[in-house]
């Protein structure tokens, strides 16, 4: 969602469009290759790093078998992302140089993250990528050409659309209503707590409170931006809300998986908890992946993407209506008219791609013989899952490299305390709902 005016750009110049094109293209290509019996190229580019302990030769032996895969993987994504980058008007030369370095770093991070010793320290690849990025990004001034390759949103959206292929639509249909119910309970309560703390306890402006509440309850930075726009909040209010989200999102990436493991939570409910209590998509995927279990990533996606992200447009419409009536002391007859198109304008469009890939793969598998379906799941979906893992590694590295704490908007203690009160309600409430109230549903997600 980069740039000032995504919804005023033509569809082909939007980041969401390119995330869908790249990921959907990959899913269609892999499916066609499977049926054509020419999976070799895709299998080769789906490079996964073997686990190792003291003996690096295990890794080098693994690479020597498929060294071309690393180049094909790089070549494919460089080409796909660069075409999108060109149409979207990025500096393509800089993007190519930046992505190349990002890719090389991601290979080294993935090798390190596969080390048994590092894994025992609970430093899975996502956390490692984030830590390395944060360390370098906050101590070294990165060259501009490298910065051009750090496109967190571009990579995470591509990863989420790929995620759709590995999450059967039947599961979305079964668990979706519970995800929506749990997300609604948490979002409404957290939003209300932050809003009332900000306005009643600290006397902050309603629009400021709405941005803080949205950031802490709906879907992080995207919500702060969407709700800030819907209620015409000042730029500084949105910036402060974003800073809050980033600070807490980074803290939660480390804390939530650690707590979930210490509390011996099952992977399903843990992912649902992260989906309920993390603030941003990219940060949430880092935390869910850090659990080291695919079920966490699935339940996280159900909670975050299906339960929370999808409804930001509805929240925007409600807040927009409140802002021109209650907050301006006007009746609906005399207030400015609010267009219902607000729901669609603020809707995160990449979610459409997520649903399309999910439905496509689900229908495809349903039409296959069981034996073929099993082979498809192993070969085609296995490759998609590995490629999805790489897009998330680039995401986590980009988060680390671009999150510069000294560049966050400075904020006073009032918004910080109001937001923190919301966090203190959201986290235990999310745990209770995920691990007690709806635990059976989250345990059933395989």
């Amino acid at each position, binding site marked *: *969602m*980069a*740039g*000032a*005016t*995504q*919804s*005023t750009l033509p569809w082909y110049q939007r980041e969401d469009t390119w995330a869908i094109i790249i990921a959907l293209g990959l899913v269609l290509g892999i499916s066609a290759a499977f049926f054509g019996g020419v999976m070799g190229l895709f299998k080769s580019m789906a490079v996964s790093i073997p686990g190792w302990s003291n003996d690096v030769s295990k890794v080098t032996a693994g690479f020597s078998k498929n060294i071309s895969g690393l180049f094909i993987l790089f070549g494919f994504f460089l080409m796909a992302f660069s075409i999108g980058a060109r149409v979207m008007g990025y500096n393509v030369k800089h993007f190519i140089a930046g992505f190349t370095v990002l890719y090389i770093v991601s290979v080294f991070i993935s090798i390190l993250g596969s080390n048994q010793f590092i894994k025992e320290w609970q430093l899975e690849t996502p956390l490692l990528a984030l830590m390395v990025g944060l360390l370098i990004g906050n101590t070294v001034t990165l060259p501009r050409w490298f*910065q051009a390759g*750090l496109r*967190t*949103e571009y990579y995470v959206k591509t990863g989420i659309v790929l995620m759709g292929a590995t999450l059967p639509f039947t599961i979305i249909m079964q668990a979706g209503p519970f995800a929506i119910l749990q997300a609604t309970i948490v979002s409404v309560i957290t939003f209300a707590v932050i809003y009332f703390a900000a306005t009643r306890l600290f006397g902050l402006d309603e*629009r400021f409170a709405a941005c803080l509440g949205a950031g802490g309850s709906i879907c*992080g*930075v995207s919500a702060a*931006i*969407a709700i*800030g*726009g*819907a209620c*015409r*909040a*000042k*730029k*500084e209010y*949105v*910036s*402060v809300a*974003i*800073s809050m*989200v*980033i600070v807490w*999102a980074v803290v939660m990436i480390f804390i939530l998986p650690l707590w979930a493991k210490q509390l011996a939570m099952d992977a399903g409910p843990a992912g649902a908890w992260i989906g309920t209590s993390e603030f*941003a998509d*990219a*940060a949430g995927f880092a935390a869910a992946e850090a659990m080291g279990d695919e079920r966490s990533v699935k339940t996280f996606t159900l909670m975050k993407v299906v339960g929370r992200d999808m409804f930001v447009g509805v929240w925007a419409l409600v807040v927009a209506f409140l802002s*021109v009536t209650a907050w301006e002391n*006007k009746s609906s007859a*005399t*207030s*400015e*008219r*609010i*267009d219902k198109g607000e729901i669609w*304008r603020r809707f995160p469009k990449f979610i459409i791609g997520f649903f399309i890939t999910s439905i496509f793969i689900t229908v495809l598998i349903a039409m296959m013989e069981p034996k073929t379906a099993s082979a498809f799941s192993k070969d085609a979906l296995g490759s998609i899952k590995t490629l999805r893992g790489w897009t998330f590694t680039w995401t986590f590295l980009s*988060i680390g490299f*671009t*999150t*510069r704490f000294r*560049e*966050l*908007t*400075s904020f*006073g203690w009032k918004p910080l305390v109001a937001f923190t009160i919301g966090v203190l309600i959201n986290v235990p409430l999310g745990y209770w709902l995920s691990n007690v109230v709806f635990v059976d549903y989250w345990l059933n997600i395989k």
Partner: protein
Amino acid sequence: MGELHKSMVDHLTRIILKPVEEPLRCQQFLMNDMADAQAVRCFGLQLQRRTKRVALMMELLLTKGFVFSFQKGYIFADSPVMEAQEAKEYLLENGFFDQEFQIFLEYGRKWGVM
């Protein structure tokens, strides 16, 4: 807050103006088989009044650096500088009413914001 704060977003304030309002109060002349001279005259006056108001708003917004475009029957007045609520207050202070315009504000992440 103000200057102390580094902005983490860009923005576009869009004021949406509709030169021909719906429903037209004098549109019966379009609906009836019978032509009605009085209704046509009324429609003309209404249209004149409305377009004059829209033109006045455009002149005011022009002084604040807004640029205009026309799409699908709507006039869009865009500014990446003036904030939305400030623009609204400006129009209200100058004698316009809430229902004479619509405001769409879009924020976008600056580079590097998660």
